[in-house]
């Protein structure tokens, strides 16, 4: 089961999302709904989006199309910058970088730690 924690820091203009576990399609839809409710109250173009995927099982192939859809959504919402933090995994990093480019998310930075 996937868990998500979503926090808005209005002073620093940052939205922090922590993702954990293995996301089913239902988990994904719930988190997207929560995300949409959060950004409806702000102007995303003023904000930075920071997504911590270190505890997320993103190596599960079924999560990848979900992330691709999210990248398209982040692009259209127009954040100043989108940061994605992963456990050190060069292969996954290259896969997600390509998805980001495909979605036209030019301000995506993937940090491998």
């Amino acid at each position, binding site marked *: 089961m996937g868990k998500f924690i979503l926090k808005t820091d209005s002073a620093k203009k940052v939205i922090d999302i922590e993702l954990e576990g293995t996301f089913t399609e239902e988990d994904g839809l719930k988190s997207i709904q929560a995300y949409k409710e959060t950004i409806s109250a702000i102007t995303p173009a003023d904000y930075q989006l920071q997504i911590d995927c270190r505890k997320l099982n993103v190596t599960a192939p079924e999560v990848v199309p979900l992330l691709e859809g999210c990248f398209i959504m982040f692009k259209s919402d127009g954040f100043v910058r989108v940061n994605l933090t992963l456990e050190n995994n060069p292969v996954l990093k*290259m896969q997600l970088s*390509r998805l980001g480019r495909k979605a036209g998310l030019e301000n995506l930075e993937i940090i491998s730690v």
Partner: protein
Amino acid sequence: MAGIRIKDIDIYHPSKKIGNDFFIQHFDEKGIDIRGLLAALGRENRYSIDNEEENSLTMAFEAASNVLEKTGLTGADIDLIAYASQTPEYIFPTNSLMIHRLINGASHTICIDSNANCAGMTASVEQVSRQMMANPRIRRALVIGSDHVAPHADKNDPVYYANFGDAAAAVILEHDENSVGFIDSIYQTDTCVYGNSMFPAEGLANVGRTGVGAGQFNVKFIPFDDSICVNAASESINTLLSDNEIAPESIKVACFSQLSLPNIQAVSEKTGIGSDVAVYIGDEFGYTSTSSPFIALHKAVSTGKIERGDKLLFWTVGAGWQNVAFVMEY
């Protein structure tokens, strides 16, 4: 007639372009004039990885993704993945297995890495085509060639440091009921220079024993006259064409090793291939080793130099060395 044909091809290269001037200055500072060497081989530019994010595997993934997107196929449509590299990023698992994961390949997919050095991708396409002719379970194969030689080149060695470029190519081979496709191939092996290009210089076992110091395990290269492969290549190609009753003038495009422009011209002349038939991309890409004949094919396809049904000839040579040639209908 059913055959194994190239469904499509695509490539990837890093964004940074380096011209000859950079290398000329580098070697001038060492008192070595490489202008003659670069001019003789036909070099002008090459693309080069300039960050820690990219390597031979990332380039392979990009090229593979490009060709899949172009053809509208997905990983699930591929029955065999063959990955050719002399600079594989990993020894295990196979790099083809990693590509399988990245493209969400099917569970029945065969994953193999191969290494025939600079002849690698040509040998892989040849071997996979032969395998597909014998194995009806393989309807579609993805063959990728990718090399990133620069980190392993001795910066005091003009041949390895100044000539190579980074790039990858990926082709999809497909069983097609209505095409001739792959026709025939020939190999010619001569081990007279088997010790002239060795990597890692001290052997893999020593990497484990003594660790890896920067530059310690570069390519060990003893210069030799590479033009001696011209006669072997010409003999091979002449035999190949003659055995299959193919007139040299019916070859529309020749995709040869891009190591040396004079070698391409000499092989063309000795085999009766027209001077404008062999595609040269070594001026733009440098020498991309395993993928070099396929980068040439990509240029021929993208510029409309070749059309479906045209006869296509490949030849290249791997360190040591081994000549590989095959002919097919595009």
